[in-house]
């Protein structure tokens, strides 16, 4: 490939837009690029497209729940089998094909080289391969909608024996395609993660010590390591499940010496750290945004990192809290209750650090800041309701009710969706070279956050009252539901429609600003980190002159300085020192 080899030398002393300095074909530039920024865009747009599909699926099954048996506009009649496929695919897509590619891969790719001051990832071609494998996995997943008997309907957790036997799940081909797609997606993120970790370890700018790395880079790297360590057993488990489906092995078949619980252990050993794989980048994004818009140093940079490490370690010993009623030993349940309650301590500490950062700051309520603040508020609700589910006694009652559904949406929505919008509105000027419209941004923000709460607060109530999950029509299963709560289910569905409708101002804002937005300066938010020292959007090779780092990323409102920010790469000027 021609790409970054010429790097710094070619760019020395030249400024401005350098895109044209070796013209590339459309194919080379947009589809076969090894540039980390272009790969970030590919991940971003693929993830966003799949988010629309995932949202559409949610609309269809929520309509069925609110108005059972209706012909859903834009879909048709929802049969029990189709309902299962819709719910399964909604979960799978939103976690594996939206949250991960956008938060980890898109922003990881875009931010890591820029924030640590280098020209690209250490392995640009492996980076390209990572996206290609990811795209292939997405295509296979979408294709599974169109095969005989349709997409897999055994829930995103894919428990055997339901998932292992075609006779049970009624979509044997869909089930195998689902597994293959998920396994390929894991491979894509392993390749990407290797790049993130090694680039951050070895590719940092001179002068950037461990404690000078911006929190968001730390978080994405730690999320990659968590992913790598947790997904291995599940890759093995996925191969075993595929063999059970296709080759007649007996790993999960209790009749022939296997054990279906084994899958649950392998799945949740991955599944729980996965929550943190999605959460950590969002926490990092929020840390960047609140320090910039509160004009204050992050309160306890090292505390944030210590608590992140503690969270990472603890996340590997909490998985069985998903299995309290799956027939595990009650003594084990006690142990996992304790570890689960323990893991809330470091996360609470982190939220405390963020609130302490805001205290006494001069806060500017820009769109990114609103998203960041709402993350803290909404995630708090998710965390607090988690205490009920983590305690085995309470979980026996709450398990498999809508309370669980509401709880994990209060953790995933703030991480994946609010985190994504926070990051997009904050880094949009750097990514696309234009400013977004603040008014449209705020309309989108308030509409989305209010609608989100309208969806899920009613579900806490129906869940606590006893509504079971996985019921496609409560009218037919009155013993699985609390009667008289249909109006709450309808309210929740109205919330979904409003939420989806409020994405229109965002799409308008996004595409309108691409062409007509105000041109973005290098550093529109007056931020310290290195990505704001290059033109918007950054040219090929990023830095005209590769930077040297002199200080940490959060030196805002430092006493004795004329400006309230202090870029990481600004040399210590003797004049300024004398003025002190």
């Amino acid at each position, binding site marked *: 490939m021609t790409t970054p080899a010429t*790097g710094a030398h070619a760019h020395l002393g030249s400024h401005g837009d350098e895109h044209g300095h070796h013209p590339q074909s459309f194919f080379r530039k947009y589809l076969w690029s090894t540039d980390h920024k272009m790969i970030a865009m590919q991940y971003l747009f693929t993830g966003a497209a799949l988010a629309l599909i995932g949202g559409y699926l949610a609309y269809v099954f929520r309509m069925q729940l609110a108005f059972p048996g209706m012909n859903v506009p834009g879909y048709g009649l929802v049969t029990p089998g189709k309902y299962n496929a819709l719910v399964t695919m909604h979960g799978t897509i939103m976690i594996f094909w939206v949250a991960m590619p956008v938060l980890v891969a898109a922003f990881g790719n875009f931010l890591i*080289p820029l924030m640590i001051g280098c020209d690209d990832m*250490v392995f640009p071609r492996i980076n390209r391969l990572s996206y290609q494998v990811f795209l292939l996995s997405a295509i296979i997943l979408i294709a599974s909608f169109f095969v005989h008997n349709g997409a897999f309907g055994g829930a995103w957790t894919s428990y055997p024996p339901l998932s292992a036997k075609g006779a049970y799940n009624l979509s044997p081909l869909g089930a195998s395609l689902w597994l293959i797609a998920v396994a390929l997606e894991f491979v894509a993120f392993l390749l990407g993660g290797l790049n993130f970790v090694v680039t951050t370890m070895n590719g940092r700018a001179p002068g950037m010590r461990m404690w000078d790395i911006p929190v968001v880079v730390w978080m994405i790297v730690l999320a990659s390591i968590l992913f790598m360590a947790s997904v291995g057993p599940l890759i093995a488990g996925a191969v075993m499940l595929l*063999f059970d489906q296709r080759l007649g092995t007996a790993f999960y078949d209790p009749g022939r010496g296997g054990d279906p619980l084994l899958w649950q252990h*392998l799945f949740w050993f991955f599944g729980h750290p996965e929550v943190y794989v999605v959460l950590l980048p969002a926490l990092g994004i929020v840390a960047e945004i609140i320090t910039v818009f509160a004009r204050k140093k992050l309160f306890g940079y090292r505390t944030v990192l210590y608590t992140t490490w503690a969270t990472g370690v603890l996340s590997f010993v909490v998985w069985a809290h998903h299995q309290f009623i799956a027939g595990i030993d009650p003594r084990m349940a006690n142990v996992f209750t304790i570890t689960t309650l323990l893991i809330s301590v470091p996360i609470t500490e982190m939220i405390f650090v963020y609130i302490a950062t805001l205290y006494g700051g001069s806060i500017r309520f820009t769109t990114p800041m609103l998203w960041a603040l709402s993350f803290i508020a909404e995630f708090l609700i998710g965390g607090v309701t988690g205490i009920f589910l983590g305690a085995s006694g309470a979980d026996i009652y709450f398990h498999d009710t809508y309370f669980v559904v509401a709880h994990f949406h209060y953790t995933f929505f703030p991480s994946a969706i609010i985190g994504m919008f926070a990051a997009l509105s904050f880094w949009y000027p750097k990514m696309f070279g234009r400013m977004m419209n603040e008014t449209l941004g705020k309309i989108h923000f308030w509409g989305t956050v209010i609608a989100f709460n309208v969806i899920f607060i009613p579900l806490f109530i129906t869940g606590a009252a006893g509504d079971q999950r996985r019921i496609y029509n409560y009218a037919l299963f009155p013993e699985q539901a609390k009667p008289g709560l249909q109006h709450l289910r309808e309210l929740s569905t109205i919330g979904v429609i409003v939420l989806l409708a409020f994405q229109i101002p965002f799409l308008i804002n996004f595409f309108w600003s691409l062409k007509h937005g105000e041109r973005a300066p290098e550093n529109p938010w007056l931020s310290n980190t290195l990505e704001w020292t290059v033109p918007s959007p950054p040219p090929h090779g990023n830095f005209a002159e590769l930077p040297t780092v002199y200080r940490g990323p959060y030196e805002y409102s430092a006493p004795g300085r004329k400006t309230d920010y202090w870029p990481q790469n600004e040399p210590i000027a003797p004049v300024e020192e004398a003025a002190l």
Partner: protein
Amino acid sequence: MSSHSIANLRSVTGIPTARLVTWWVIASEIFIFGGLLVSYVMHRLAHPEWAIAAANTNTKAGAFNTFVLLTSSLFAVLAHKAADAEDGPKAAKFLRLTALGGFMFLTVKGFEWAHEIKEGFVLSSGGFWSFYYTVAGLHGLHVLAGAIIMLVIASDAAKNRELPRVQCIGLYWHFVDIIWIFLFPLLYIAK
């Protein structure tokens, strides 16, 4: 090579990037094999009757293969030593001997499996055989991939090119070797 980013040429940790990433690849592989082996061991402890099935494995062939893999690892070390001394052709020779060991291992494995399949023990014959073929098969794939990559690196090394890669493939080979050290007693000897 044509495409190196500036980032690729930096080494903040002091460990060359290629070696660093090899270690991370090995780390991720440890979790894959770890998950499989822990699952197997838990099942084995719960099913003492699997010892009857396990008695049908060919311990002698397994022991011979252990010897072959360990010997090939010795050649990998000698290749690394030659590469450190900038003696590419010699490193290439030892790498090819290492790969030969890998292919020998796979050949023995092939005869073993052919025999067992003829006896009627296949992937779907029950819990033990499911694990036996899956775990050993995954390991065999790693041996095959390693041996092929080794031959590619050897052809470069023979022309004194890309010598640091000799050490990376050596690290990987030792890892594959160590996995087998776990598999052999667990699959063949444990009764």
